[in-house]
């Protein structure tokens, strides 16, 4: 029997790892990966609460979150590709002026 707090604790732990990753990492794509990890941690919390309290709305919200994550990944990676074409570098420290 796994209590609810274990699932929520795991979700918080994964979210923390993702948030720390956004701070530490310099590569734009790796920062993106950490954002996806944070979204997945939120998904885990939603599915756990939906299962424990019998409400299907949590899982439907997860469905919508996955779709939004897909849309955001597509647009975000397109932006990263444009930035790479202009500055020849994926390091977010190099993207600090509005001029080229």
């Amino acid at each position, binding site marked *: 029997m796994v209590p609810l707090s274990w699932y929520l604790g795991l979700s918080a732990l994964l979210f923390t*790892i993702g948030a720390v990753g956004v701070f530490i990492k310099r590569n734009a794509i790796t920062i993106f990966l*950490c954002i*996806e990890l944070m979204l997945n941690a939120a998904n885990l919390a939603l599915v756990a609460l939906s299962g424990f309290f019998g409400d299907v709305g949590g899982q439907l919200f997860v469905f*919508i979150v996955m779709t*939004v994550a897909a849309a955001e990944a597509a647009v975000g990676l*397109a932006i990263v590709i444009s930035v790479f074409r202009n500055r020849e570098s*994926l390091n977010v420290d190099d993207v600090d002026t509005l001029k080229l």
Partner: protein
Amino acid sequence: MEQTLFIIFAVIAVASALNILIQRNPLYSALSLIVTLASLSALYLTLHAQFIAAIQVVVYAGAIMVLFVFVIMLLNEPKDVPHIEKHKWLRYLAIPFAGLLIAEMFYALPLDKQIAFPSIPAEQADTAVGTTWNIGTALFTDYLLPFEVTSVLILMAVVGAMVLARREGD
């Protein structure tokens, strides 16, 4: 038995999530994230959320991460360019930030209450929360508006990605 399964998949998820931070090569980070997504899918299965578990593998691990892996492979950064790190203080700020989040977790979690998973009677097994039937009926009756709005969102994303990734003069 369920506790063993939870612990195995939770350890795999946390270990591969930490591996995302440890690896320098972004391709290895992406592959670690795929392992995390697969173990999260297994955790969804322990929560009887079968449809979401399958959709997580099909959509997240099978499509979104393929997109990430493609972009990493095509944007091959030359390895001999020196990287000067301009904001070193951010790295040292991350540790107290993580500590703050973990403290907040302990504050917010209902650690004293032992809420157990409700058992599902056998005659409701085909239409219980988490089965395809249940999610499908809810999605197309109560939650139809978010479903339709999501399709508009995807259309916006497709158009936006095509416009942003275009070269000049195309």
